[in-house]
């Protein structure tokens, strides 16, 4: 008896298979993360030492008699300069880590020589980026919790507002922060050598978004640039929610701006990915590095 075979593709993409692919990438990234214990050490040490350098400089600027601190409190309205600085530096570190992790996700695959073969699998290609985002969100949550814990324990920083509203500001910031990471990933894969781009973007956050100072101290033209960066609203909102006892209504201008930036960066990130995907197929550039 002769068996008949109906022609069909070996891969049958569907929602479930895409979800499985996404989960496989999440698991792989988590395995790689656990493989290098030095990163776990960095997870505990970096949240402490990066802000500490600015905090110790601020301590020196405060003076022996606290006269400098009195000026700072008058200028910023914040009595706790440690909490003030920690919020700004944590936002900077978050964006910096996303740029390196999510922004270089595809580039690292390209360097390892696995991007082209992954590209041939019958999966939704955007799931490669989303898959990298899953473990990244988990480690970043741990990072932020460890930061709060360490500064609470060692420096006596206490919430003077609502932790839930601070959490809300963080959640609303996720689309903007990661959307920027997605857009970045597509640019990196096209421009290849892209460390300088990371330095540029994180440098802009460092200069304009007020990580250790109020944006009002910047010259007018710099303040204008700051208003076009989501990290400015994130830092402002988190400081207000955590230390100034701000209400939801007080935070709404920051939340609204963050939501708008989130829509913008996620859309741009996705569109750039699609553009890069088409361009890579047309030019065959995906396997080059």
């Amino acid at each position, binding site marked *: 008896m002769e068996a008949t075979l109906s022609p069909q593709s070996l891969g049958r993409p569907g929602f479930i298979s895409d979800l499985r692919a996404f989960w496989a990438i999440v698991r792989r990234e988590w395995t790689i993360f656990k493989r290098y214990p*030095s*990163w776990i*050490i*960095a997870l505990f*040490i*970096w949240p402490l*030492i*990066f802000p*500490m*350098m*600015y905090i*110790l*400089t*601020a*301590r*020196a*600027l*405060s*003076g*022996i*008699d*606290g*006269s*400098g*601190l009195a*000026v*700072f409190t008058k*200028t*910023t309205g914040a009595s706790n300069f440690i909490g003030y*600085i920690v919020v*700004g530096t944590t936002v900077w570190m978050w964006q910096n880590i996303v740029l390196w992790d999510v922004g270089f996700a595809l580039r690292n695959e390209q360097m390892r020589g696995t991007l082209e073969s992954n590209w041939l699998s019958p999966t939704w290609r955007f799931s490669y980026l989303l898959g990298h985002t899953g473990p990244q969100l988990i480690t970043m949550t741990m990072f932020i919790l460890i930061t709060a814990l360490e500064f609470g324990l060692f420096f006596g920083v206490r919430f003077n507002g609502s932790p839930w509203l601070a959490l809300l500001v963080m959640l609303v910031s996720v689309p903007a922060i990661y959307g920027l990471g997605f857009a970045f990933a597509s640019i990196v894969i096209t421009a290849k*050598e892209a*460390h*300088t781009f990371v*330095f540029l973007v994180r*440098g802009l956050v*460092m*200069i304009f978004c*007020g*990580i*250790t*100072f*109020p944006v009002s*101290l*910047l010259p007018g033209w710099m303040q204008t640039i700051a208003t076009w960066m989501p990290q400015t609203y994130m830092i402002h909102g988190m400081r207000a929610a955590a230390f100034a006892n701000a209400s939801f209504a007080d935070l709404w201008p920051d939340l609204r701006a963050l939501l708008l930036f989130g829509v913008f960066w996620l859309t741009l990130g996705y569109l750039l990915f699609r553009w890069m995907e088409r361009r890579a197929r047309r030019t065959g550039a995906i396997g080059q590095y």
Partner: protein
Amino acid sequence: METITLSQPSFATQLRALFTIAKKDWKVFWRYPLNAVSHVLQPIIWVTPVYFMGKAFSTNGQALGFAQYSGTSDYMSYVLLGTALSNFILTVFWGMGFALKEDMDAGVLESNWLTPVSRIHILVGRTLTSLLTTTITSIIMLVLAAALFGFRPTGNIIAAVLTAIPMLVGLYGFGFAFAGIVLMMREANTMVDVSSFLVQGFSGANFPVKSLPYWLIPVSLMLPLTYGFDAVRGWLLKTNTLLPLNAEVTILVIFMFVMLWFGSWIFHRVERKVRRLGTLGQH
């Protein structure tokens, strides 16, 4: 028939090897011109938050609180000088370990090791170009920063440079020891990032160590770099120093001899062990 070795190492061949390594690094450095721009701009970007933060603590541009610890209210000159010195520390202290890691990753370390060149010379050679490029980029950085933030050294430049020399030479000793650790651990990034941050922080790259919490001050006083930063600032900015300047310079000269001996001893021991284990080519 007389037997001779193929290599005949002499002072001249060692010098030639040093020059060849430096020339290769020079070529690689300028192959990526954006890196050079980044070397100039990165330190400026990092000190910008300090500049504006200082403004939040100042009245009419005078950081009077800062002056209580340091003896100068010109905190930006203080910070910029620390940043420029930190560039050199990074180059010498960590540069050699990083260079070895680069060679490991590129797979050329083992073959370099087989050449009849002293291994310490290979390490020193890897710093020559970076010392030159660091000098160029630091000068440009200071000129730019002077225009943006103000940089006003009013003291004795020659005495400051002469003080920095034993500090940098002593750092070569640290660098040799660190290179040994990299050979053994085969991982450099996290170790370099974390320890350079801590060492520079506690030795007062950005602030007077007297302002540290009392329990951290002993840590700071045990680091020879603390006296280097302090003495160079004392000469150039006429700040209050921890000890009389002559005493600080003496500490730096002793540090130089001790570290050169200790660092090369550690490196040779580790290097012998790694060769015996046969792990030189692994990374």
